């Protein structure tokens, strides 16, 4: 917030000194107010990945509520990127056996931020015939 007012003051100083004209100052002030601030971006960034499962209303229905911090996912992926190459094959094999067709060797630290960023847009909402619900989202 203090950065914004400082920038605004600089523009007004430039105007008062006659270095820029009124229309230029107006344009600069407009661009300043429309530019997303770093603080604002931080606020909108989700902190947690949530998985909520509501079982059916019958006698076997259960509930699952999982909250995973996004930073934990980041840290976990950074750690996975450090795995020695000999470990990749058994991990890939174990993942495939459990239905996850994923190649761990392709996880590169430079791609992690992009991957997590796309994960924040994720939203899964599934509703079954007998009332069971599955929701995966970021908050």
């Amino acid at each position: 917030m203090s950065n914004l007012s400082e920038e605004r003051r600089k523009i007004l100083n430039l105007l008062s000194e006659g270095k820029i004209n009124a229309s230029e100052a107006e344009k600069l002030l407009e661009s300043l107010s429309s530019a997303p601030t770093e603080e604002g971006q931080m606020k909108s960034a989700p902190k947690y990945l949530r998985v909520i499962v509501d079982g059916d209303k019958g006698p076997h229905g259960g509930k699952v509520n999982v909250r995973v911090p996004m930073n934990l996912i980041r840290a976990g992926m950074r750690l996975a990127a450090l795995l020695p190459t000999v470990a990749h094959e058994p991990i890939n094999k174990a993942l495939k056996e459990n239905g996850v067709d994923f190649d761990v060797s392709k996880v590169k630290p430079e791609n992690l931020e992009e991957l997590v960023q796309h994960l924040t847009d994720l939203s899964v909402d599934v509703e079954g015939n007998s009332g069971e619900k599955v929701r995966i989202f970021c908050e």
Partner: protein
Amino acid sequence: MILPSLIRIQFKSPKSWIPPLWIPIFLIWPILLLLSVPVLLFALFSWSKFGPVIVQTYRFMCELRGTLVDVESPEAKVLISIH
């Protein structure tokens, strides 16, 4: 970055009831640090190889704060929360 300090574990079932447990894991960290001194010393000599792994493992453990797992079925309810 701060390591987690407490873990809350709760287990409920119609047959048995255990009071919620608040485990002060901040007491474990100094002991674990003392125990890992030989490992850290060894890692210092080959920091380029083991340094990033140690740093990332520490980060991973710090980021565990805020994790919540709450599973409920008609038979039992289990809650694990890391603070």
